[in-house]
Each structure stands twice: as C-alpha cells, then as structure tokens.
C-alpha cells in the first residue's frame, strides 16, 4: 500500500534533476515564521513540485531539440541535408524524411505520454490537503500553496508536506514519532523532539500565530541526516539540528498532532533534492551495438571510398568519353571531383546499412518485453497485490546474461518476520510434533494449530503446533511459568492498547516482538508499562511488577536483563542473551541442564533457528539495594559511564539459574532455497552481502542451501589487519588450488558436461565445493587496491560467498569490484535503503517491494515482491529477451546488408554513378513497412524453448552468460550472410537479365524491371529468412509475415499503377513496371532461383549444426516436442532441505536498546490515557530523565548520522541517503536484525 502513496510523493523517478535557480547560490536561508511577506523577498521555492518536462507549447521545440541530440537522429538529419544537394542527391529526400518523421513521431508520442503521467502525478501531489495556519486560523490548503515560513498542523499517519521544523506536539516534552521508511527505508520509528521553548506553544493557535521566530539555516541540500540552523526568537538563540526536523516524505506515527514550521518547500526539500536522475544504465548489447554501428560507419565509408575511387577511374577511362559524346560539359570537369561527389552520393544510398529503424525497433522490443514482465501473473504476489514491475525498459536482454547476483539478506532472502518456533524449558523441548510412531512430522500449512481460546488476550496471528506446551502451562508447572514470565518482563517493547484487549506491541526488534507475543499467547500477557512498573495478565490475573532496573542490551554484552520486584516482594533478575554469554554466568548447579539445553540449542540451530538462552536469579533485597546505590552513583558519573555501567551489570548478572532457550525462526521468503539452487545450476554465482552478523548470515546461508555440511571447506576471513586478511585469503586460495590443480585438466570437460546438466546435476556438478565468508572489517582491508585481486580470485573459486557486517558502501564496492575485473553482468537484489548503492552500482538492480520501505524499489530497475521471482525473471524473461534481442539484431543486420549492398555490386556496372537499384519508394518503405513487422513479431513473441523447459533446464541460461548469441563474430557471420545474399540477389538477376527479353519480344532488361525483380526477390528471401528464424509461430507472426508480403505486393502495384502516376508523374516513374515484369514467367523463375540459392546454404548449415553440434537449446526443443506429443508431465525442481549442525546465534538489534527511554518514562503517554495511576515522578527525576533523553537522542543521532552521504565514492550521486558508514569501523546496523 505504501508504494502507492509514495508515487504521490515522488511522482516521477529520476527524471528530474534538481537545478539550483540561476539567481545565485543560496548561502544561508532566512525564514521567519508567519511572515510571508518577509520570506517572499528571498524567492524560495514554493511547495509545488514539478517533475514534468514540457507543457503544451514547449513540447514540440524542446522535444525535437532533445531528439536531435541523439547521434542517430542527427546523422539522419545530416543525410537529409546532403540529399538536398542536387549534385549529390542519389535518393529523393523522402526516402530519409519519411522514416525520420516516423521515428521522431513515435518517440515524441512516448515522451508525451510519459510527461502526461508526470503532470498527473504532480497534480495529485500538489493538490493534497494540509492544515495551514493563515491569519491566525487553521485553514485547509493544497500542498502546492504551502509557503516557506508557514506553520502547518499534522495529524497522526499523515505525510509530512514539506521539510518542517517541529514546534510542538501532542506528546510530552514535544516528542513526536516519525516513520522514515519512504525516505531511508528504516521501518523503526524515529523520535523527534521540539525545542522546549516552542513545545510550550502547544496547540494554542493564537500563540502559534504570534510565533515570529526566525530561522537561519543551511541552504537546501540532499543530506537527509544533517541540518544546521539557529532559531532566533525573543532575543534568544536556539541551535537547531536534524533531530528537530520533520522531512517531507516521512509519516507521523503515534502522535496525535504536531505543529511545524516550513523551512524547505517543494523542490528544495531534502526528499526532492535526493530525487536525482538515476544513472543511465546501458546493456552490453547496447554498447556492442554502438561499436558495431561505428564499424558499420567505417565500412560504409570504406565502401564509399572504394566506389569513389572506382568512379574516378571510370570517369577517367570511360565516363569522360561518354560525357563528351553527350556534350555534357558540366560532368567533364574533373574525375576526382566527380569521385568526391560520388562518395557522398554513395554514403546516402548505402546509409541503410545503419538503419534508422534499428534503434526504434530495439526500443519497441524492450518496451514489449518490459510489458511482458509487468503482465506476468507468475511474478504477481497476491498477498500484497504486487505485480512485478520493469521500471527500466532498457535492460531486459541483460537479464539473460547475469553471472553474479549480489543479494541482501534481510527482507530479501528472509521475510524479516520472526516466529517463535520452539523452546526448551528445563531440559524439555517443545515445538515439534510427532505422529503415533514417534516420528517427527513436518509442519505445513495444514498442521493443526494449538487452540489458545482459553486466553482472551491472545494474538490471533500467532501459530504454534505443539499442544504439550499449553498443557504444561495449564498444569502450572512453575518453570514453564517462569519461562514465559521472563519473556513477558524482560524486553523493551511498548504496548499500545487502542481498545480493550486489542494489544499492539511496538517492538524495537522483531525478535523481541515475537518473544513477547509468544508469552502473551501462552497466558503471560504483557499489558502495560510505566517507567516503574510492568503489568502482566498472568493466566487472566493482573499482576504488577515493580521495574527496578533495566540492564540494557548492547553489542558487547549480548544480553539484557531486568530486575523486578513481584507483588510478593521478591526481587528477581531475568536475563536473556546469547547462549555462550549466559552459560558463562550460570550457577554451577546448572551444569547438567546446561548440557541438555546446549544440545537442544544445537538442534534448533541446525534447523536454522535463532536462539536465545534464558536465565533468572533471585536477589536479596540487601544485595540489590547495595547494587542500586552503586548504579545510581555510576549513572550520574560523567567519565567512562558506559564501561562502569557495564562492569556493574556484570557484577549482578552472575550465578544465574538457567531456564531454557527459545528458538525463533527467521522466516525465509517462500521458495528461496529452491530458487538459489536453480540459479546456481544456471551457473549464476550468488553472493550474499548482509549487514548481519557472521553467525546470523551463516545460519541463513545454511538454511537456504548456500552453505552445506558436505562442502569441502568453509573459509572464514575475519582478520583485523591487512596482513592477517592477506594471509587468510592466500591460505584459502592455496587450499582450493591445491586439490583442484590435478583436476584442472578435466575441469574444462566438467564445465562442458555441466552445461548439459539435468536434475542429476545437483549431486555431481562441482566435485570440490568451497565457501568464503568474510567479515566487514576484513572486507574493508580486502577491498584495498593491493588485495582486491586476491579477494576476487579466491571468491570466484568458491561456490558461495557471504559477506557479513558490510556497510552499504562496501556492498557497492564489492559489486564494483566484480564489475570492474570480471567482464560479467552483475545483478544486485535488495529491499532496503542500505541496498540502494549496490542496486545502483550493479548492471541490473532489483528491488524487493517488501517491508523496508521503497528506497530500494525506487532505485531499482526491476521490482517484485518475492525473491523467488528472480528465477523466473532471469531464466524465463531474461533468457527470452536475450534470445529475442540477439536473433533480432542478427536478422536486422543481415537484412540491411542484403538490402543495401546490392547497390555496391550495381556500382560496378553503372559506372559507379550512385544509381540506385531499387525504386526510391521501395528504399523508403523497405525497413519501415515491408520487413519491420515480421521481425518485430519475432522479437516480441519468439520462444526458442517454452517457459517450463527454461526453468527445468537452467543450463539453457549459459549461452547468455558467455555472450554467445550476439557478439562480434556473430555480427560478422550475419553481415557476411547478408553480403552473400546481396551478391546472389544481384548477380542471378543480372545473369538472367543480361540477355533476356519478354515473351512478346520486347525488352525487359531495363533498369525498372530489374529493380522490381530484385526488390521482389529481396522481400521474399528476407521473409523466408525470418520464417526460418522464427521458432514460435503465433497467429501474429503468421499475420505479419504473410501480411508484409501481401502489403509489399499491394503497395508495389499501387505505386506502379496508372492512377497514382497520373497524379504525381515525377514521383512514380515506375508506372506499369510491376505489371509488365511480374507477368513474365522468366521473372518468377529468376525470383525462385534467387530465393533457393539464398536460403538453401543457410538451411544446410543450420541443419548440420543441429545434427553435429546440437546446442542444449536444440536438445531441449526436441525434448519439448516429444513431451508435447506425449502430453505434459509436471516435474518439479524440488530440493530436499538439508539440515546442518551449525550453531546459531544470538540475534538482536545491534542498536542500543530503548531501556533508558522506558525507565525515564519519557515515551509514555500522559497518565490519563491509562487505567493505572502512576507515581508522579519527582521534578528532579524529570530533569535527570531529560538529560537521559538528550543523551539518548544524541546516541541515536550518532547512528543515524552515520548515514553518511557517499560523496567520496562517486558511486552515482543520487539517493545515497541511506548508506551508513560507521566512523570507528564499528558496524552499526539499525534495520538488520
């Protein structure tokens, strides 16, 4: 749903470049609240956005100007001008102008429609309503009428209309929450706080209307995480930073209302400033095509020169006499000059080797292929109503050539949904179900779920299958109860109860949410919290615990604890954390339980689950009081507070009693292992680049079959210095090269055999499999210039590469590295803002329209909802596109060479005088009417192998990666074929016409009859050839091929008819030629012979190739036809998921927890909204708390400040807003959980 809204925010992706207005660079911005007159002096942009390029009047000139900037169009314009010179003009002007106008018109129509939609979306955004404070009253205004300096009121769940300075909000202390998903992709809520002075204004409209503070701040820029400014009000100065800003594109959450003052509006907002033009990506075929077109130009010029020299010699020897006989003095002048003119004349005639329609046709094909992607129901995700979308229409064929896939993990491979799956309580596991024979039963959608109806506060979406746990709860087993009590108490989740019993948890990390939800369903409902209490409903009974301390989570501690006092007065410490950490702090009496639990943990981890160990401890009141005093002392200290707190926490978290362990499933997206297996078979290398920790990443690697236990070795590179990394890489490489060296000889054969692999390939492909896992800090060293080659070599020897703890910048660097050194097509797939740089760097960027906002999708070239669609996108659509495009290009070049070079041969007989062979109308229409549609139909609909077989035989993808179907060699072959065809096309009619007369004795060897014969042969030969190239004859193909022939004859006869001649005699001098020549049997005999001679060699060669060296495609086609005869049989590519014995890890937010916010109570609602009476905090506490909040915000600021703009890398300067780099080399992940 969010994506729809987003279109309203960013109406047109990447089409608009923010340009600073000419009126001088703004150096400082002065904005005075509620003072439009003052602000108007500076001519700031208003809140209207305009992404459209044209309006009604400017469309034609601007569009034409843009179009003629393209080399091809300009070239044809030059040709047109050349044609207007009578001495040169070998063709009438219309031969060029008709196609040119057609091309320009098609492009213009496309541009116009694009712009129309831009206008529409602009309009939609501009007319959205917001409440603006005008003349002391709140009035509804359209967005576009909002001005800088206005004060506007926002309500919950509203989009922020412009970049605002937060003035006041409904929440205490001027706090407000925003979701920045659309801006940077982070889904967790962010806190913004107004200045105290302004938050006092509250909701008092009259006071707000009087507010006349002036903000002096930085000029508009695209840095989403930085803002510098000062508020001058009532003779005071208040510093402003990003924590007081609400940026356009954010959504207000959990805040009833807030007021803000517009600082940047419209195009100057940070969001719009970030909507830079995305770097234009070109496919390798595009580049190749450009090279080839240059070569063709070269060839054209060579031909021109040859013919010009020929002309000079001919004029010298023969022509001179002839002209002098004719007394044509003008042409007698100089053979060299005549040669010079002839050169240009031939350039005009032969220009059709670079057909103007090539570019347009290619665009049309790509557009068609993009539509097929958009229309594909098999890539439509019904749960979210998301079809696949080709956002770039120019990259389709490259999808058929991908060799490297760089994938994000969270949200791409995994759903980022955590599910409480299993647990081990006091040495007993729950969560598996067994049949009557004691065998484990696989849990599927149909497995019955445990009935939680005993619990009125349950979460209906929660599913659990093992009923024994509920029985244990109902039997009131104390440890089971304690287990869930811990889960319900030890966390930093915020509850929200909109109406009675309708609980919503705001969890900082989905893991925590899953655990608390589990406790809730098992009867330990976490219902409310205040800074000092936590209220649970334990089996329906309200129990309020005093919250004495939160020992918060951080990356070093890898655990969190709470200390609570239950109603009975017992003080308890509940702790949950990474097993390795907690096991070190257990009481010795737990040893036996520890071993059992440890076994269970191994089991859980083997299934790819994320585990946490849980422990508790009873505390003496005295010990606790003692400790609490120390805590209070330390927490007010200024020096080394963190470390001292850590030590203090350590002190009390000792001698814990183990309760058990939880296992949370990080749910993979549907079909991920199968997809990965299939893509691997297609010889695509998949590298996972994740911000996650090593353990988590490995876990996922195992669960999606990228890592397997039967792999020869998994290398883990985690050196901290350049030297260590080098050492590790070198040894890894040696280990791989060592055993495989003897196999090197056979390695080549292996490659070959695996091209023709089938299902059994799974087992046998590569004998030695290695995996490389590299840590972020090692990667930083490995990416340095001296090590990158080694990294690349080693990585490419491995089957699987996983990079963990990488920053977005590093993701892009890795992609860049592969792109630079391997001449391979790379594809990056991700869903989060942290993947944007990678998506933009790779040849093809794919965005998962998932949960992490829209940034990735907006930066991407293709987007869809599920990772598994990648398989279809590449193996079906990509392969088809590539196949179609290559066949298309081969045919197109062939066709045009065959068509044009006839002139070359004729040159030798007509004194190199640049006389055309064909009728000029034929030249005009050949490419755009007679032969364009069949090849377009082929390029749009052809399927060498159907989708089913494309997926079933992933090795069919190989030719694309090896660039086999269209390369320079192919180009030479097809042009050679074209040249041969033109030779035959010319010389067979020549031979036949040399001495031919009609059956009534009158002569037929005249130029016009000759032209018609050759043209007809050409059209027929070319049509037969496209018929041979078409593998998939749909009705459309039939229609176009036969239709084109019919149209050819129809137009031929029409243009040679009496009627049109009598109207335009000079334009249609071929009157009657068609009738007179095509009535002749000899002409048809010539056409038949020409066609046979042109086609048969090609047919023989193709047949021979298919028999002697059949490609996999040939085989699969054969098989496909065989199966069609037998009827279809469903065979699915399924792979058994293997389990592994890997340890899984503590997975948690890598961010500082919310503990401080909770204990300070600053994020709590006013007491009135709750049923409970809070003890009102003493004023002193509030002050302390405020400072806590400040420090909290500061810390959060650090993390988000780390969202450094990637200016230095030069990886395209667009929306890199999301790239986070941690200055100290410590990798902070906010959204990877």
């Amino acid at each position, binding site marked *: 749903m969010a994506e729809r809204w987003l279109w309203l925010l960013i109406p047109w992706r990447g089409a608009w470049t923010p340009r600073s207005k000419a009126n001088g660079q703004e150096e400082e911005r002065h904005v005075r609240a509620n003072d439009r007159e003052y602000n108007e002096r500076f001519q700031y942009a208003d809140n209207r956005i305009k992404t459209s390029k044209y309006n009604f009047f400017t469309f034609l000139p601007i569009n034409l100007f843009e179009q003629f900037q393209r080399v091809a169009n300009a070239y044809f314009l030059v040709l047109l001008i050349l044609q207007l010179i009578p001495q040169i003009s070998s063709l009438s002007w219309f031969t060029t102008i008709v196609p040119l106008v057609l091309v320009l018109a098609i492009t213009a129509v496309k541009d116009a429609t694009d712009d129309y939609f831009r206008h529409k979306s602009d309009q939609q955004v501009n007319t959205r309503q917001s409440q603006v404070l005008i003349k002391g009253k709140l009035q509804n205004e359209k967005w576009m009428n909002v001005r800088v300096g206005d004060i506007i009121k926002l309500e919950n769940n509203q989009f922020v209309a412009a970049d605002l300075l937060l003035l006041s909000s409904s929440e205490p202390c001027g706090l407000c929450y925003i979701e920045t998903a659309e801006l940077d992709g982070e889904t967790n809520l962010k806190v913004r706080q107004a200045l105290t002075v302004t938050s006092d204004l509250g909701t008092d409209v009259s006071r707000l209307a009087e507010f006349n503070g002036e903000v002096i701040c930085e000029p508009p820029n695209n840095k989403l995480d930085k803002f510098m400014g000062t508020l001058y009000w009532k003779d005071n100065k208040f510093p402003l930073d990003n924590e007081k800003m609400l940026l356009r594109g954010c959504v207000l959450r959990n805040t009833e209302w807030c007021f803000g003052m517009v600082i940047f509006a419209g195009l100057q907002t940070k969001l719009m400033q970030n909507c830079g033009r995305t770097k234009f990506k070109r496919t390798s075929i595009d580049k190749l095509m450009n090279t080839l077109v240059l070569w063709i130009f070269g060839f054209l010029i060579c031909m021109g020169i040859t013919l010009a020299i020929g002309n000079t010699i001919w004029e010298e020897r023969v022509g001179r006499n002839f002209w002098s006989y004719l007394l044509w003095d003008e042409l007698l002048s100089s053979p060299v000059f005549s040669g010079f003119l002839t050169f240009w004349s031939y350039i005009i005639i032969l220009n059709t080797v670079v057909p103007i329609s090539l570019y347009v046709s290619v665009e049309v094909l790509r557009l068609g292929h993009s539509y097929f992607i958009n229309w594909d129901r098999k890539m439509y995700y019904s749960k979210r109503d998301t079809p696949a979308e080709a956002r770039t229409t120019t990259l389709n064929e490259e999808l058929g050539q991908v060799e490297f896939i760089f994938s994000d993990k969270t949200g791409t491979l995994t759903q980022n949904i955590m599910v409480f799956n299993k647990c081990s309580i006091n040495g007993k596991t729950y969560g598996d179900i067994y049949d009557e024979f004691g065998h484990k039963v696989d849990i599927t959608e149909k497995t019955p779920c445990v009935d939680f109806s005993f619990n009125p506060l349950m979460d209906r979406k929660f599913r659990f299958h093992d009923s024994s746990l509920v029985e244990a709860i109902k039997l009131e087993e104390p440890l089971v109860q304690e287990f869930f009590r811990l889960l319900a108490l030890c966390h930093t989740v915020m509850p929200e109860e909109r109406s009675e019993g309708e609980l919503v948890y705001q969890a900082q990390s989905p893991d925590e949410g899953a655990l608390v939800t589990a406790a809730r369903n098992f009867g330990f409902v976490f219902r409310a919290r205040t800074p000092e209490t936590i209220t649970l409903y334990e089996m329906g009974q309200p129990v309020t615990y005093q919250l004495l301390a939160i020992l918060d989570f951080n990356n070093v501690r890898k655990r969190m604890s709470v200390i609570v006092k239950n109603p009975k007065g017992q003080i308890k410490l509940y702790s949950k954390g990474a097993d390795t950490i907690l096991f070190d702090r257990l009481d010795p009496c737990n040893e036996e339980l520890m071993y059992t639990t440890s076994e269970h943990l191994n089991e859980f981890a083997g299934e790819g689950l994320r585990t946490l160990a849980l422990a508790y401890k009873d505390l003496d009141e005295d010990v606790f009081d003692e400790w609490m005093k120390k805590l209070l002392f330390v927490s007010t200290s200024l020096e080394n507070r963190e470390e001292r707190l850590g030590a203090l926490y350590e002190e009390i978290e000792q001698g814990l009693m183990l309760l058990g362990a939880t296992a949370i499933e990080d749910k993979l997206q549907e079909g991920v292992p199968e997809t990965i297996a299939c893509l691997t078979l297609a010889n695509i290398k998949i590298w996972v680049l994740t911000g996650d920790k090593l353990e988590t990443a490995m876990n996922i690697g195992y669960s999606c079959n990228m890592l397997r236990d039967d792999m020869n070795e998994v290398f883990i590179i985690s050196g901290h210095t350049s030297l260590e990394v080098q050492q590790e890489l070198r040894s890894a490489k040696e280990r791989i090269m060592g055993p495989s060296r003897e196999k090197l000889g056979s390695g080549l054969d292996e490659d070959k055999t695996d091209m023709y692999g089938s299902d059994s390939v799974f087992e046998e492909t590569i004998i030695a499999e290695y995996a490389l896992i590299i840590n972020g800090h090692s990667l930083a060293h490995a990416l340095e210039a001296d090590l990158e080659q080694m990294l690349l070599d080693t990585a490419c020897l491995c089957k699987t590469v996983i990079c963990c703890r990488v920053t977005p910048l590093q993701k892009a660097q890795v992609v860049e590295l592969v792109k630079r050194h391997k001449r391979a097509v790379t594809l990056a797939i991700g869903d989060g803002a942290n993947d944007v740089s990678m998506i933009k760097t790779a040849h093809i960027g794919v965005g998962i329209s998932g949960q992490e906002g829209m940034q990735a999708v907006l930066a991407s070239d293709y987007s869809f909802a599920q990772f598994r669609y990648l398989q279809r996108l590449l193996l079906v659509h990509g392969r088809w596109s590539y196949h179609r495009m290559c066949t298309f290009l081969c045919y197109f070049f062939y066709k045009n060479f065959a068509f044009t070079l006839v002139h070359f041969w004729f040159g030798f007989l007509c004194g190199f005088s640049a006389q055309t062979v064909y009728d000029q109308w034929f030249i005009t229409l050949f490419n755009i009417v007679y032969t364009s549609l069949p090849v377009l139909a082929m390029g749009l609909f052809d399927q060498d192998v159907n989708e089913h077989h494309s997926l079933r035989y992933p090795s069919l993808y190989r030719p694309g990666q090896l660039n086999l179907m269209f390369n320079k060699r192919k180009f030479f072959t097809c042009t050679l074929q074209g040249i041969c065809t033109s030779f035959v096309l010319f010389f067979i009619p020549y031979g036949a016409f040399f001495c031919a007369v009609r059956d009534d004795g009158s*002569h037929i060897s005249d130029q016009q009859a000759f032209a018609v014969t050759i043209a007809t042969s050409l059209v027929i030969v070319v049509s037969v050839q496209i018929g041979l190239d078409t593998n998939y004859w749909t009705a459309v193909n039939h229609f176009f091929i036969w239709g084109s022939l019919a149209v050819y004859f129809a137009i031929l006869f029409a243009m040679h008819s009496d009627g049109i001649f009598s109207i335009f005699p000079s334009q249609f001098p071929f009157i009657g030629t068609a009738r007179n020549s095509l009535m002749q049997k000899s002409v048809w005999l010539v056409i038949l012979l020409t066609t046979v001679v042109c086609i048969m060699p090609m047919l023989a060669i193709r047949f021979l190739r298919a*028999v002697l060296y059949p490609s996999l495609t040939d085989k699969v086609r054969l098989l496909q036809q065989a199966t069609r005869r037998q009827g279809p049989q469903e065979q699915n590519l399924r792979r058994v998921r293997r389990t592994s014995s890997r340890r899984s890890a503590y997975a948690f937010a890598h961010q500082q927890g919310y503990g401080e916010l909770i204990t300070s109570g600053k994020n709590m609602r006013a007491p009135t909204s709750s049923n409970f009476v809070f003890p009102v905090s003493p004023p002193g506490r509030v002050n302390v708390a405020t400072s806590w909040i400040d420090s909290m915000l500061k810390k959060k600021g650090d993390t988000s400040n780390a969202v450094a703009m990637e200016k230095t890398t030069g990886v395209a300067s667009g929306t890199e807003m999301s790239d986070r780099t941690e200055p100290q080399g410590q990798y902070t992940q906010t959204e990877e959980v």
Partner: protein
Amino acid sequence: MAMLQRGLKTLARRPDNSAFKQQRLPAWTPSLTAHTVLPIFFCLSLVCMLLGVWLLITVQQTYQLKMDYTDTNSCSKCFDLRKNSSKAQEICHCTVSLTIPEDVMGDVFFYYGLINFHQNLRRYMTSRDIAQTLGRKRSLKSPSSYCAPFNYDENKVPIAPCGAVANSMFNDSFTVNYHLRDGSTVPVPLYRKGITWYTDKNVKFRNPKSSNETLAQIFNGTSRPLFWQKPVYELDPSDPNNNGFINDDLIVWMREAAFPNFKKLYGILNRSERPFTSGLPAGNYSIDITYNFPVQYFRGRKEVVISTVTWFGGQNHFLPIAYLVTAGLIFVTAAALTAVYLKVGKNGKNMEE
C-alpha cells in the same frame, strides 16, 4: 496494517490471465529436423533439375543471330565519318550481309544492340522529364531542371523531349532484304509498331492534348534535341499517329537499360506475306543501315540481333544452366546431409544429455 489488509482483498493490480499477456499464445513451433529438412532438399533439387532441363530444351529451340556492324565491311566508312561530329548531318548508308543457315520458324524479332553504352548512369537516367513526355503542357514549355543542360537550347528555347536520354536516342535505321536463290531481293517486312510495353505507349507517354491542333502546332515553341535530325513530331513520316512522344522507337529508347550492354527491339517480322508466313527462311540476307549513331566516342559497338522467343523470353542460356547447377549442388548437399545424419544424427549420439 489496515491498508495491508485491504490490499489482501483487492487484487486490483493482478495482471490479466490472457494468453497474450502470459505469453501462452498458441503457436506452431517448427524445427529443423531431418524429417523436414532432407525431404525439402531432395524435392527442391528435383524441382530445379526438372525446371533446368525443361528450360534447356526450350532454349535449344530458339534461334539467335548477332551481327556487329560497327565498322565491318562497308560500314567502316560511315564509322569514320561519324568520328567527326561536324559532319553529323551527312547521311551515310551501308550494308551488311548475313546468312541464316536454316529456317527460323515462328515470330522473329529484330533488335539493335549497343555495347558499352551506359544508359544506367545516375545523371543520365534522371536527365528526363516524365511530366513532359506525359504531355503536360506546362512541362512541355518549361522542362524540369533534371534535364539540364538539355532542357533549353542555346536560344533558351525549351527542348522537347528534354534531357540526355532523349537527346542520345539511337537513330540508325535498318532495312532487311532477303536474297532469293534466283537472285531477286525481297524486303523483309517488319512491324515497327507494337514494340513497346502497353503501359508505356498508352499511359506513360502521351502527346500534349489538343482538340484540333496538329502535332507540329502543339510542339511549336520547342526545339528538337541537339543530336536529333528531325523534330519529335516528324519521327515517323509513315504514320502520323506514331509521332511526338508516343513514337515507339522513342519509347523503347526511353526505357533505360539496366546494363551497359543491351539490345532493344527494332521490329517484328510481319508474317502476313510469303515467304515469311512461317518465319525467316534460310538463306542470305542483307541489311541496309542508315548509319547515324556514333559510338566511337565512348568505344561502343553496335549490333543487330535476330532472334526468336519462347514462353520464357528470348534465348537465355543462363537460367537453365543456373537451374541445373543449383539442382546439382542441392542434390550433393542433400546427399551429404543425409550421410551426416545417418552417421551421426540418427541414433541421436549428440542428443544425449
């Protein structure tokens, strides 16, 4: 969340399930298998062979006689005379004799041939005004600039027909005589009309329309082409309807040949009188030539061709031979392909996966 749930129910953006959009259009998927390709080869080979043989037999029945008269015998004096352009107006006659060894049955066609005359040069070919020869009055008096420099003579009088093509019209004329065994001479009657394409004579070339003016009046105010001895309205003194732009010889000439060596129809044997009712009888013939057309400037040659035609045209050995060669090649290829297929392809050795 609420939005999401709403989204669950509506599948508004689901693509249509049409065969077209899902790329499942029913289609015919032919492929190059031995069962389709080899029969095609053999069949084509057979077809070409049959055609070739048939054509060859047909061509054998035709008769063609070529006679280069550029500077042979008595024509050499005319050849020398034409070297000098100042004597262009001097009339020169010469005679060539030829022998036809056996009777030539059926219709016999007389052609004149030119060697090394480039009617297919671009500037030459465009040097004509189609509108003018179509009889457009405006074009008659103001010929198109394409005709330059042959659109106006030195007195700025428009030339009709304008342009280099018309200007260089072939203007030799022939009279063929048959020498009977008894020594007497019978002129061979030739049809000099009906030698053009119907469309040319009736559509493409028209005289300017006029109700009651004579041709000479119509063409008043134009001048004849530079090289011509007679104005366009006096081309055929024998038939006033064969004058002007619709003169058959002019039309034949104006249909420009594609190659530098070409022959154009001059006349057709009139078989209404004996002894020519069944064709040309064997014997000696002579051709009286009014030798006007100079060729030495461009090292050209002139010839007369006497020929019969068949259903597919005149004597043309190229097509039958080409067909036979093609048939042979296709057959050899087909045999080779079959061998390869039987050896390698049939048991599907390469088809193994």
